């Protein structure tokens, strides 16, 4: 089971900055192990953010995103009580969704 994300929200007027830390190995598929074998790629491929159920941003990531990814974006036109939901899915089919409410 995947570990929870850490989502921090900072609102200023109608803009809300979203800072997300995700717990993931993000194995690049380029690295070799001690025996010289390539460690297979294992990465978050898709990220989706919804605000009150409506998709506001999606992303596709490769193995070049750092381990334990940090991702930040800015929501427009937000108000207190709005509910942000973030989902990631990796190339092994594992996924995780976490939520945060704008205060």
């Amino acid at each position: 089971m995947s570990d929870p994300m850490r989502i921090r929200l900072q609102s200023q007027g109608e803009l809300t900055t979203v800072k997300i830390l995700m717990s993931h190995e993000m194995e690049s598929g380029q690295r070799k192990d001690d025996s010289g074998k390539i460690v297979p790629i294992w990465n978050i491929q898709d990220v989706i953010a919804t605000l009150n159920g409506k998709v506001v941003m999606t992303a596709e990531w490769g193995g070049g995103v750092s381990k334990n990814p940090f991702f930040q974006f800015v929501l427009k036109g937000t108000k207190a009580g709005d509910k942000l939901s973030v989902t990631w899915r990796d190339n092994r089919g594992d996924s995780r969704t976490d939520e945060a409410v704008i205060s």
Partner: protein
Amino acid sequence: MINTRREVLKKSALIAGLLMQSLGYMRSASGYQQNAFDAKTVLELYKSLGLAMPVESKQIVLTTPEIAENGAVVQVAANTSLPNIQRWIFLVEKNPVPLIAIFNMTEQVAPAVTLRCKFAQTSDFIAVAQLSDGKVYFSKKEVKVTLGGCGG
């Protein structure tokens, strides 16, 4: 510190529904573009994404460190005053796989995105902005990756 993280209740039907909806959206609307992530050069990448050759624009502002103490984690950010941005494409030119990420933007988000990515060596970071009219612009900045630690 504002911290409103909540752990998802696994049994919540609402969340489960949202998850299904989200994954469904990802598969139908975008679909993971494996070809682009297989491209070994920037030109190959542009081709696989069906992009016109991007034009350099001063309206794209990049925030990157000049020097990275460790190439494993380098924070990069792009922002732009160009109107109607549809997609951001983040590249590290000299990586074995240059494509780092694609962000599909909507009107509900500002055109500013920050991500941490890996640099295999000193390289240009390139952010490509694709606008809704199909025009493509880019900006680039070099990040020096240094050797560190006692082990050299």
